[in-house]
């Protein structure tokens, strides 16, 4: 195995210095963190200035109570109201279209963030229009909605002769505080988002890691083929050792990357006191991660060895990306039902095992039986994959020209 280590060392050191590796090393966590944290930061960031909302109040009955409701609920840090209502009066003609045009212009000119249209029959149909350049701003719309609901409810109650404060008390909203229970009976507060993010980040990292290093591997094999270094390699070392060295080097590369990211994660979690997956879960994830990684490394070797042009390489890595993307697309479904039969079945497909478990473990620890059986499955699949890759590698690494078809490869694997 000395030669396998020599190959592994070379693959590791040469790839770790490559630009594409360094880019993925630093860029991936940035993208992850960016995609995960920035929107939630934007959402929860308090406003520093009052936001002006226009209102066209046909009956004239709602502007004052709505302003009061908004002011009592939402205040800026300095005690000023977060939202200021600004009445947009009808002109002399009482023309609804005219006032709307004027209001639209105010929005476009950024004099107001947006404006509400409260018609006279609002109590009947409870429909309020909100027109804004940024209609997707959930923070504002949900707050306006809540305040409007209060106001309308109050009006309706008084009309029916009921004391509004009683209604308020009866219809008090329930705040669902989600508490995640772990095996040790420890309580852990965690919202859906948090769980989603930790699972999702983990899986995305795995995806990026396998993709970048897999592509590096395919590319380097292609280079060795095109410059015929492979002949010298094959004359210097048994094909199996050569392949083992490549997989080993690549795995070491993956571990370096994940170790680096974990370090960033730990630092980040200490600094921002974000709850992380408990350590036991993390260790288990690492096991799945390594096994899944080796499995895919073997697949990439098998897929890359028969290729002889860059174009073919792109095609083949394209197929592999599709396989790798499947679990990501399934994530939301799995998160909602981590223990469903489908989730369990999917966990037993070697291509998906590692990522499925990466999603499931942080949410709800699968049963010990399931963990052991999937690990065994993944170990066996990895061995089989390496064996198959070895056969394909030995015979196709020296062949040039047309890429063999799946059928030809299958015959090759079956042959002695």
């Amino acid at each position, binding site marked *: 195995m000395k030669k396998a280590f*020599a190959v592994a060392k070379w693959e590791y050191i*040469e790839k770790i210095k490559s630009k594409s590796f360094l880019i993925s090393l630093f860029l991936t966590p940035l993208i992850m963190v960016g995609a995960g944290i920035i929107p939630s930061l934007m959402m929860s960031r308090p406003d520093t200035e009052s936001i002006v909302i226009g209102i066209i109040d046909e009956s004239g009955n709602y502007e004052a109570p709505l302003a009061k409701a908004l002011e009592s609920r939402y205040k800026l840090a300095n005690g000023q109201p977060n939202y200021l209502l600004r009445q947009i009066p009808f002109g002399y003609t009482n023309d609804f279209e005219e006032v709307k045009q004027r209001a639209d212009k105010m929005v476009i000119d950024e004099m107001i963030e947006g404006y509400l249209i409260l018609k006279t029959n609002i109590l009947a149909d409870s429909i309020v229009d909100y027109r804004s350049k940024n209609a997707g701003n959930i923070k504002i719309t949900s707050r306006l909605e809540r305040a409007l609901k209060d106001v309308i409810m109050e009006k309706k109650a008084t009309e029916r002769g009921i004391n509004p404060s009683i209604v308020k008390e009866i219809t008090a909203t329930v705040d669902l505080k989600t508490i995640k229970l772990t095996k040790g009976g420890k309580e852990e507060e965690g919202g859906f988002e948090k769980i989603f993010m930790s699972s999702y980040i983990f899986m995305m990292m795995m995806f990026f890691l396998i993709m970048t290093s897999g592509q590096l591997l395919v590319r380097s094999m292609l280079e060795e083929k095109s410059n*015929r*270094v492979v*002949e*010298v390699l094959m*004359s*210097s070392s048994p094909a199996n050792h050569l392949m083992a060295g490549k997989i080993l080097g690549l795995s070491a590369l993956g571990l370096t990357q994940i170790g680096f990211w974990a370090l960033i994660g730990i630092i980040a979690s200490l600094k921002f006191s974000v709850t992380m997956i408990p350590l036991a879960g993390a260790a288990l994830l690492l096991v799945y991660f390594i096994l899944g990684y080796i499995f895919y490394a073997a697949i990439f070797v098998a897929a890359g060895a028969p290729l002889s042009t860059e174009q073919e390489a792109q095609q083949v890595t394209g197929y592999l990306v599709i396989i790798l993307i499947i679990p990501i697309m399934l994530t939301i479904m799995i998160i909602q039902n981590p223990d469903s039969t489908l989730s369990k079945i999917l966990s037993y497909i070697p291509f998906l095992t590692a990522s499925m478990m990466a999603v499931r473990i942080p949410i709800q620890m699968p049963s010990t039986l399931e963990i052991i059986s999937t690990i065994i499955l993944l170990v066996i699949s990895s061995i089989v994959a390496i064996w198959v890759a070895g056969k394909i590698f030995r015979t196709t690494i*020296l062949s040039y020209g047309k890429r063999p078809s799946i059928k030809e490869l299958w015959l090759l694997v079956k042959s002695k």
Partner: protein
Amino acid sequence: MLTAIDVRKEFATVVAVDGVSLEANRGEILGLLGPNGAGKTTSIRMILNIIQPDSGKILFDGKPFSEEIRDHLGYLPEERGLYRKNKLLNTILYFASLKGIDTAEGKRRAYKWLERFDLLTAYDRKIEELSKGNQQKVQFITSIIHEPDLVILDEPFSGLDPVNQIILKDIMLEMKHQGKAVIFSTHQMDQAEKLCDKICLINKGKVVLEGALADVKSSYGSNTVRIEFDGDPNILSTHPAFSAVQLYDNYAELVLANSIKPHIVLRDISQLLDIRKFENTEPSLNAIFLKMVGTEKRDGQAKEAR
């Protein structure tokens, strides 16, 4: 050192090597000759255990291939290439490590060879920054850094300038004198003629000619004349005195037809051409090659065969 007995390799559609036997001894340079597609590369790959023969035996000092033997083989493939993005010294050390040479020893040897090839100052440069010829020198170093007992060089001279060709030739002769077995595969008959002790000519997967170079040549008799001249060479191609003719602009290698005496021919053609040099000798390896491979024609082929 190496004995191949009746080695055969078949690919899907062709028999690449059809019962080849050859022997490479220590202290000898064996010329492995043959046209393109003759089965030389396949033979070499089988010797190196890169691919397995379908039948036949390949023995090293009487023993079959083993992993230990691998470290004592050196190989320079015909098609050249190295890791482009890597540094020169690192590349050499990597190949040395694959042959079981540790870094310290590898460095010592690498510096020695780099100095000999006048590349010492470039040791920290990337391969792709070197000229083609220099890349080739580096690749040659990688194939012999582990001081192999059997080294197979496939067209080692192609792409080298005359100065470096001399260095390479000296090294090959040194290896021979150090008791190494050298297999020298080439199309360039003049190179083979100067360097080889023995030759093995393969055509269409079969050995068509083998033996010590001197024996091979003398077996073809001394009915060859080489002339250098000024004048129209086409007179020679139709001249009845010759059974085979290779023409160059002002040089020709001619085989005398049966029982024609050289001095009669000389008298005859000196009236037609301005003869500068006339030599009655054994045939050149090139002529033998052309004869054996069967592409010889009375004219027109000379340029291709040079």
